């Protein structure tokens, strides 16, 4: 792979170490998949399995959001299906987004806060070469975190299938994995790279990542009001829109990442 050779390889390794050595971010990066993809779904599964069926009376009105082939299932099955295909995707994408955003904050804001961005600009490395390596590094963290989360979800889903005797993965996950996850990773990375220009350091930059998470939370939770339903096509459209926004952000980042824009 070209970017893993020579100077780029060394730069990439340095960036990975840079994210890993941000002591405030490391526990969060490790905790997010554990909470979003292991603890929360496992806890919910435990509650559904242990609690009596009457406990789910309050959420029966949400069953109408489920596809027809699930409507004949038991309350436990429908409740976990609802959780696995509406709440879990939100958690999964939040993990992806926040991992990308925190890594990007550490990479871009960290350089700025540490005063090392200018030193990089004093080497023969081009600003765009540095920018691209940072983006790749941030995406690697988002990819690894998503992969770990997905593996955890697959395992939990298998356990749930055994316990509740039902297969829980819907076709939505195809869009989530192959369209939304990459698009949202890029969105989180690029938006933080851009916001790092106005932040003083990695922490102040990371604080802004909460705003990036808000649209995802709203997108998934507002469908419970009945205004819309995120089916396969709707999610594909959302993914497409995020991808277009990524393209625009990419252009804006490339224009702005030059030594002329360094704070001084």
């Amino acid at each position, binding site marked *: 792979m070209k970017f893993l050779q*020579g*100077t780029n390889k*060394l*730069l990439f390794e*340095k960036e990975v*170490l*840079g994210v890993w*050595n941000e002591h405030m971010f490391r526990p969060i990066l490790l905790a997010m998949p554990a909470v979003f993809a292991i603890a929360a779904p496992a806890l919910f599964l435990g509650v559904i399995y242990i609690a009596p069926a009457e406990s789910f009376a309050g959420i029966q009105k949400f069953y109408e959001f489920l596809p027809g082939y699930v409507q004949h299932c038991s309350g436990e099955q429908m409740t976990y299906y609802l959780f696995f295909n509406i709440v879990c995707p939100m958690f999964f994408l939040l993990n992806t987004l926040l991992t990308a955003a925190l890594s990007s904050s550490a990479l871009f804001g960290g350089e700025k806060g*540490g*005063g*090392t961005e*200018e*030193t*990089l*600009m*004093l*080497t*023969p*490395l*081009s600003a765009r070469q540095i920018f691209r390596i940072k983006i790749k590094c941030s995406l690697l963290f988002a990819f690894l975190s998503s992969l770990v989360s997905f593996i955890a979800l697959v395992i939990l889903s298998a356990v749930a299938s055994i316990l509740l005797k039902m297969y829980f993965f819907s076709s939505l996950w195809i869009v989530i994995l192959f369209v939304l996850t990459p698009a949202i990773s890029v969105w989180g990375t690029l938006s933080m790279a851009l916001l790092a220009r106005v932040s003083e350091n990695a922490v102040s930059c990371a604080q802004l990542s909460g705003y990036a998470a808000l649209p995802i939370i709203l997108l998934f939770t507002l469908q419970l009001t009945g205004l819309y339903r995120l089916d396969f096509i709707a999610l594909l459209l959302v993914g497409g829109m995020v991808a277009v926004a990524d393209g625009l952000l990419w252009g804006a980042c490339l224009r702005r990442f030059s*030594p*002329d824009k*360094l704070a*001084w």
Partner: protein
Amino acid sequence: MDAVNALNLSKEKEEGGFRLSEFSLRVPEGGVCGLLGPKNAGKSTVIRLLAGLEKPDEGMCSVFGVSPWENRREAHRLCGVYVDTARMYGYLTGMQNLLFFGAACGMEHPVAEKRATVLLKELDIWQARNICLREYTPGMARRLSLARALIHRPRLLLLDEPAYGLDPVSSQEIKELVQTICADDGIAAVLSTQDLEYAQTFCKSLCILENGCQKASGSFRDLCTRFEKRNRACIRLAEGSVVPQGFVRGEDGLFYRDLQQEDEMPKLLHLLVACGAQVYEARIVRPSLQDVYASCINADVFVERENGNEISSGNQQTSV
């Protein structure tokens, strides 16, 4: 080819006015030029423009014929830059930092390692090579930054106050190191400093700035001539002696007189003794850069006369 060539460089302040106005400079290969001036004089701006960290609003500059802004990659292969704002990675050790920046400059790993070893030993931080930079003292970090600027064997060093803010011992060591490295390797240097004594001994040419304006430039001898700073005869006579003809009494009680040439001194002494003066002590006092600097900064000099031509300070080309 000139190491540095700058012509009419200007950089405006965001709030209006100039950080640097019509600055010109020429430093030949192997030359050392000192940028002097009070705070906010524009010294750091010159370094940043020559390093390609900022784009000039007007004028042009080049290092070995390469524009640092338009071809930064090539310029940074030729230059080693030390500016205080350019830090290194706290989570990497001294050696790792140098190897990283060596690789960033396109050096092969074994070559970078060999060079880093030499520099760490020369700069007396070899013992700390495996310690994370965040644990370095400011003096050690400054030395490592200097090593970073030198790792790729640059042909030109751009140094912005390398010894500023350090304790006297570290400061002296850094200054001596820069001087030795430049002399041994024939590296050209542009050095911004407020240490006039150091600049006088190290720099072959000097440039004095104030409020972004280039007030004077040239060799120390040129500046002395321009500001009429000559060698002076200094004598101490017996208590109550009258002031000899042509001498003035200094605040320290000694008598001073300007000399056109050094060989006037023996004749002057002979005359004084012949006239019956009791000379207890006699010596030649040479002008210092401090004297020149004080005259330059206090005098409102914007136009200088050279060879009978009136030349605005912005258009002067200084050769080392």
